[in-house]
């Protein structure tokens, strides 16, 4: 149910993001989704990739600090209110969203929402009971 996400520490210096994507490209790692959280001094880059271990290994070898976290991917129809319904369900259980990002798949019919919740297990139960589709990393990569 959980999807492995990698996170990379980035100083706010020009060219760092370019370097990371180049390293991944050279090693045949495909990025499916990403987001950056930033402050004045540094940023945290989060990535969903097809080859998690490979990505972690090559980034580390290139001197980056890499972490691995579990996130939840929810597939919704790419229609008005898709995200709102998911958040309503989570809100009812008083679960906080630590962060989230989203992408739309190739066909443009569905959107994939990536979530990190404060209480991951509870969130999964709530989403399943609410009838939402939770997808795996393999499914994301196959989209």
């Amino acid at each position, binding site marked *: 149910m959980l999807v492995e996400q990698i*996170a990379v520490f980035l100083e706010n210096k020009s060219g760092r993001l370019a370097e990371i994507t180049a390293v991944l490209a050279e090693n045949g790692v495909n990025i499916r989704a990403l987001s950056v959280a930033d402050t004045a*001094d*540094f940023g945290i880059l989060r990535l969903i990739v097809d080859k998690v271990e490979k990505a972690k290994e090559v980034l580390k070898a290139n001197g*980056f*600090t*890499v*972490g691995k976290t579990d996130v939840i991917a929810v597939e919704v129809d790419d229609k008005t209110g898709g995200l709102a319904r998911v958040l309503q369900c989570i809100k009812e259980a008083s679960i906080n969203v630590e*962060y989230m990002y989203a992408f739309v798949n190739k066909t443009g019919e569905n959107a994939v929402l990536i979530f*990190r919740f404060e209480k991951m297990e509870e969130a999964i139960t709530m989403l399943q009971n609410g009838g939402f589709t939770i997808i795996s990393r393999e499914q994301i990569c196959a989209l």
Partner: protein
Amino acid sequence: MYWQKEQECLTRSNLENLQLERLKKVLKRVGTNVPFYRNKFNSLHLNPDKLTSLEGIRDYPFTLKQDLRDNYPYGLFAVPLRDVVRVHSSSGTTGMATVVGYSKNDIVTWSNLVARILCGAGVTPDDVIQIAFGYGLFTGGFGLHYGAERLGASVIPISAGNTKRQIQIMQDFKSTALVCTPSYALKMADVMMDMGVNPNGLSLRYGLFGAEPWSEAMRQEINERLGIRATDNYGLSEVLGPGIAGECFECNGLHVNEDHFIIEVLDPDTLEPVKPGDVGELVITTLTKEAFPVIRYRTRDLTRLLPEPCPCGRTFHRISRILGRSDDMLIIKGVNVFPTQIESILFEIEGTEPHYRLIVERENNEDKLTVLVEVVESIFFDEMKKQRAFINSIRKRMSSELGIGVDIQLVEERTLERFSGKADRVIDKRKL
């Protein structure tokens, strides 16, 4: 286990009386026999006979490493060379070498003091002790050697170097105690792995380590990898060599052999005593040495005085492990800051040797300290909230321990240059 229980467990009041009596004697002796001290005491109108309390020591002048150099080689000896039976010398890596001497009685005292430390660290006459300190002008090898013989242990005087042979002998001779530097102990563990030697198959049980600063994490690593009980001991050739202070089995500070030394822990800047428990420079006066007494010798080593009673029963005060050198001290907003304080906080948080840089600046006539810290996996979070909370927690901890505000800036791994010396980790941009 004690070597000289009567002395090691003296009541504090008896100990202090003994110290005062011995202090007067040594001050009188150096004031008579050593021109360097005689001139200093005379110019300050100091009369040891008038000393009524131990605090009176603070009227006496300090002795510096430079004084030892200026009187090279024999100028500070307090007995004729005829009565000196041994000469040692410091390595001279940070300048001209210094020379120290020992009388027959000094060697006996020294041996007993080292035997105390060996006992405290668990060594008994049944042990086989492998001394992997260099033998020669360096005090480490001979100091431990004489102490171990005095105790009655079986000594293997293998000296430093040739690690494979050390391990071979350790296996064949069934050494139960190892004496060397802590970093050499870890090197031995590495070489054992290369050689396919399982440390658990050895007879080794105790390790006595000294001659360089080390950390609690390093102790744990040594204990785990060699399957031994590692203790810290402290000494410096200018004062005695090994035998000044050593840990008991509590492994929580080093007992100073206070019947033979008076220690002070002073603010290196004001030279006033720091509060017990605060970091300061260790200053030592020898009470019983005949050939080479020193009065208020500034060691430049930083430590904390731990005056609380120890469960082991020894009444001698303890000092913390050596935390660094006062030569590296920075004064920021009028507060003394030692890079090692910051290092040990980071070490504790990260669990590995931290890479950091201190930047001191002056903005609008106010000093500002920024600590650059390389991010490692153990302190990196995917959530901004946690990452910022983490930065805040180190900032608060450092500010409260150092007593000044600190800014923390995280930088990417391997972006700070690697230096070997601690002083190089400081960039002082203040134009004073």
